[in-house]
Each structure stands twice: as structure tokens, then as C-alpha cells.
């Protein structure tokens, strides 16, 4: 079922192992984001797919064919570099036509496909410019056109929005998502920005220590993180240490779980906590710090643990914030929204 299949790929640079049995399978026509902190191996994995890095072990297959032994120039894989790596000595049109020219396509075919590709990214009028005369967003579009004109089997994009300022970044993310949907190409983005991952992709693969920690649709990963590492990397999470006994995470609000008895961690997203003052089940604490965002207010609630609980509460016109030091009771709005992980937490703040 996987169109692009990465099977147990390993890579070390000297003594440092960057990829450790990294496996991944991506359905045809879907967009995947490789998400992880810098140094987690995500760029190395992308470069392995393109053939710039030769894995020590494992295989990479596209549409059932093993490409891991092919040279980079025989892989038919589109690559958009972090700073686009446009050829500064060639015009926009020559940059985009580069791949067609080195393949010695007939002149009329080059002209036709070049025009199509420039139109696709809306750069038809700028063909004669040099890369240095373009804005960051335009350069990005040239890089994408240069890759897509060759109709590659997959499109790889290494932190493509890093070089853009925040305002333009959002616009280009939406534009790029639309463009990829129109072309229907299997794509992999690399990013360390979890919002970007949520915006862009059908699936997210969270990477850590050289392997995929969790793979799935963005909201599934957000709602059901399989480790505290993933919970902390995608969105923010309260990690509450505790114990499991007889199928429940013990506490003021027992949470049913399949996790075996012993030490455990409860993961709750801040928006799944409610703050009350009346009686009932929940953790008792004092309001520490309130951050009014606008549509929501974020509270830090001191429950006597090393880390305060964080709760995000919706807000409407005229509502104020709860004053500091107010004694409150924090409860989970829906026990389904909490995730129990075995063991005490090993990551996080």
C-alpha cells in the first residue's frame, strides 16, 4: 500500500548514529511532514531519499522499485532545498528548464513544459530575471517549478518556509498546499515547526533519536500521543505523574486505561482541563499566572507539584481573568481526552 517505503534505514556520521532503523510508509498522493527538533535526523532521511546521503543499511522503495542503489541523478525525485539553491548564474527560465536541458529534450517540448511550469507557480512574467532579483517567496516558487517540471515521483521539501518572514510564510503555506493538491504529487516536508506540520500535511511523522516516534494524521497524533516526547513536541501537554492500579490511572478523577499496573503518566492537553470552584472530583490548586490571549485565557495552576498545571479556557466578550491565588479545582472535561502512558515521564520540561 505504501508508495514510498523506507525500510530500516541506518546512517552514522563517524560515531554519531543519525538514523537508527528508521522505517516509514507513505501512501501515493499524500503529503507527509517529518517533524522533529534539529539534529533528530529528519534532513538526513530526506537527503537519503534524494541520494545525497548513502545509508549504511536499509532500503528505500518508490512504487515497488528499490532506489537506494541509484545515483542521485537517476532517482526522479524532486527536491526543494532549504534556501532553494537556485543557480545564481541562470535566469528563472533557465533554472526551471535546467533539468529538461540536461535530459536533452527537444526544444519545442522544453518551451512547452517550461511555460506550463512557470504558469503553474504564476511566474510567467519573470522568466528573464535572475534569482537575486526575486523576493524570497518568488525564489521558493522557482525552486518548486524547477522540481515539478520534471514530473518527479515524489517531491521533497527541506524546511521550505524557513527563509521566509512570518507573514509570507502563512500565505506560502496555503499556496503550496493548494498547488500540491492540484498536482497530486506525493510530498514530504521537513520541518521543526509543529504548526506548519498541522497546516500542511495528511500525515505527520514525529522523529526523535534517529527513528519515527509516531506516524499518523495530525489530529490523531495530537489527541493520542504515544509518548511524552510526542505529546510535548506536538502542541503542549500536562504530564501528570501517578500510578495505574486495576485498570485505572489513580487520582481524584480515575481514568480507565489498558496500561499495566505500576508507575504511569497522565497526558492532558490544556484545553481539556476545566477550572471550577465548587465541589466535585479534580485536583485542588491555586491560580498562579494568567495569560489572556484573547479568545482564550491560559492559566498556570499550582497544585504543589514541580510543574504547574496548564489550562486553556475559552473566553467571550467582557469576561475577565480569575485573580491569582484563587483556590480552584481543576478537572478533566472528558476522561476520553486524557492519555495514560506507562512509566514515569522521561522527557518534557
Amino acid at each position, binding site marked *: 500500500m505504501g508508495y514510498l517505503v523506507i525500510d530500516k534505514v541506518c546512517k552514522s556520521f563517524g560515531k554519531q548514529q543519525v538514523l537508527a532503523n528508521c522505517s516509514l510508509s507513505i501512501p501515493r498522493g499524500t503529503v507527509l511532514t517529518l517533524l522533529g527538533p534539529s539534529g533528530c535526523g529528519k534532513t538526513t532521511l530526506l537527503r537519503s531519499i534524494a541520494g545525497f546521503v548513502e545509508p549504511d543499511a536499509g532500503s528505500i522503495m518508490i512504487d515497488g522499485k528499490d532506489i537506494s542503489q541509484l545515483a*542521485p541523478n537517476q532517482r526522479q525525485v524532486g527536491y526543494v*532545498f532549504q534556501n532553494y*539553491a537556485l543557480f*545564481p548564474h541562470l535566469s528563472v527560465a533557465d533554472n526551471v528548464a*535546467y533539468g529538461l536541458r*540536461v535530459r536533452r529534450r527537444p526544444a519545442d517540448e522544453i518551451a512547452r513544459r517550461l511555460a506550463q511550469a512557470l504558469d503553474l507557480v504564476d511566474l510567467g512574467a519573470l522568466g528573464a530575471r535572475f534569482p537575486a532579483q526575486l523576493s524570497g517567496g518568488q525564489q521558493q516558487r522557482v525552486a518548486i517549478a524547477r522540481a515539478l517540471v520534471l514530473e518527479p515521483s515524489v517531491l521533497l521539501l527541506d524546511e521550505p518556509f524557513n527563509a521566509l518572514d512570518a507573514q509570507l510564510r502563512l500565505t506560502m503555506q496555503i499556496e503550496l498546499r493548494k498547488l500540491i493538491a492540484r498536482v497530486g504529487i506525493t510530498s514530504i516536508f521537513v520541518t521543526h515547526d509543529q504548526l506548519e506540520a498541522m497546516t500542511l500535511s495528511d500525515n505527520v511523522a514525529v522523529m526523535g533519536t534517529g527513528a519515527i516516534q509516531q506516524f499518523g494524521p495530525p489530529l490523531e497524533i495530537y489527541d493520542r500521543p504515544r509518548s511524552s516526547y510526542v505529546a510535548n513536541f506536538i502542541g503542549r501537554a500536562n504530564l501528570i505523574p501517578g500510578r495505574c492500579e486495576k485498570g485505572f490511572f489513580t487520582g481524584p478523577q480515575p481514568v480507565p486505561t489498558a496500561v499495566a499496573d505500576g508507575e504511569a503518566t497522565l497526558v492532558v492537553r490544556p484545553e481539556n482541563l476545566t477550572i471550577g470552584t465548587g465541589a466535585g472530583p479534580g485536583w485542588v490548586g491555586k491560580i498562579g499566572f494568567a495569560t489572556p490571549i484573547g479568545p482564550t485565557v491560559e492559566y498556570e495552576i499550582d497544585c504543589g507539584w514541580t510543574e504547574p498545571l496548564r489550562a486553556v479556557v475559552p473566553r467571550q466578550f467582557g469576561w475577565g481573568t480569575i485573580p491569582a491565588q484563587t483556590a480552584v479545582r481543576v478537572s478533566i472535561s472528558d476522561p476520553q481526552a486524557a492519555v495514560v502512558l506507562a512509566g514515569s515521564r522521561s522527557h518534557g520540561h
Partner: protein
Amino acid sequence: MATDAVPLPTARGRWLNPLTSSGFAPVLPAVAYLVLFMVLPIGTLLLFGFVNIERGRIVSDSFTLQPMMSALNDPLVWRLMWRSFWVAVVSTVCTLVLAYPVAYVYGEVRGIWRTLLLVAIVSPLLTSALVRAYAWLVILGGRRGIVNQALMSMGIVDEPLRLLNTDLAVLIGMTQIHLPFMILPLLAVLSARDRRLEEASLNLGASRVGTFFRVTVPMSMPAIIAGLALVFAVSYTNFIVPQLLGGGSYSTLAVQVYEQTIVVLDWTRGAVLATLLLGTCFAMVFLIVGLGARITRWNEVSR
């Protein structure tokens, strides 16, 4: 943008401000030094070709084009200039062909190899060109020369080849002596180049050789131009190598300047020939740099 807060420099401020590109102030010491100790003395020497000299004294307020005219009407001068020119062009091209791979390899190796390579490239500059020209005399010279001894002992030739006192000897010597001037600018650009451009080229389907000629070489064009201009200028005006390796009957324009000035003591003739040498050399350097600027037009827009 934060730069809005910076007051715009006044005309005077701009001229003196070393941080703006139009600031001329930083080059003043070098320009003053060169004008005083190079341009003026050379100008004075060249002037000898355009004045009347009687009994060792310059006739005041005299100006004459007669020595220049007689030089321009002398076919020997044209023959010498042509030889200077083609020897310089051939040796400059040879230098480029030999230098490029060395500079490229320098960009690929790391650590101790890089240091060793740099020392090997620069060390010839530590001995004077005169010494190196004499060394070639020993290597290429007659029956006892190293090259001929080797060829004869291997049985490749029976009689010693006539290497010394030929164009070939001059070309070999010049190319070797001027090699560092070509390698150094190339090496600076090639070792600092953006390798992602080459990866991009491979990714787009180009072969390694294709990538080299389509990306690496064009990107190093500014250094190639600099090296060509530099090496052409020093080759065209070099008189030691043609004199030593070309032999007594071999001459170029630069050798003639030397002989007229030092041996014949005809300073007028020497000055006129030097004017021709310098003028044509400048013209050629401007041509190389001008053509280079056209080729590397993309470099202009990136400022």
C-alpha cells in the same frame, strides 16, 4: 525595517564613511603610496621616450613622437610584440588548465591534506622567479639536463632533445612560475562554494561531469577571470624567463625593454618600447575583465 532609523549619510559623510560602498577614504593610503612611488617614477621613465635628449640632458619643453613612430614602423617591434602576446596567451591558458584541478581538489580534501596542499601551492613563491628559471635551465638544459638524461637512459630517444632555447622551454618555465597566481584566486572561490547547487544539479538529472561544466565552472568564473588577467599580465611582461630559457638570440618585447635600457643604454628606445608593452598589457587586461563582467552579469545583480 530597522534601517529606517539610520540617518541618511550626507554627501561628505558618504565620501568619508568607510562602511558605505561608495566610501573612497579607505583606499586613500594605498593610492597615495602607489602614485608617489609607482605611477610618478614610471611616468617619468616613460617620458624619456617623448622628449629630445641632447648630451645626456632633457631639452626643456620639447615633445616628440619621432621615437614612437620609428618603433611603430619597425617590423621587429611587431614581431616581438606578437611573440610576447602568444607566449603569454598560451602559458596563461596552460596555467588555467593545470591550476583548476588543483584548486578543485583543495576544496574536496580536509584536515592535514588541505594544509599540505596549500603549503605545496604557495611554497614556490618563497623562491625568487630568477632561481626557479635557473632551476629549469638545469632540468631542460642540453645533454646533461635531467629531462634528456632520463629520456636517453630509458631509451626513448638516442640524441638529446633540443629543449632549451625554444618557445617550449619558455612556455614550460612561465607556466610553472605563474601557477600559484592562478591557483590562489580559484582556490579561494572553489573551496567556499555552495555545494547545494551541485546537489541541486544532480537532483535535476545532470551527470557529475555535466554539473561541473554547467554549475561549478560558471560559478567560479569571477576567479577564472581574475586569474587570467593576473597571469596574462605577469607572463606578457616577464623578461627573465624568455631571456634565460629562450637563450641569447630569443627576444620578446619585455626582453627588448630590458636590453635597450640596461645593455644598449638607449633609454629613449627603452621608454618607447615600455610604453607599448604597458599600453598593450593594460588593453588586454581590460579586455579580459570586460569580457568577464559580461559573462558574469548575474554577479552584478546580486549586489
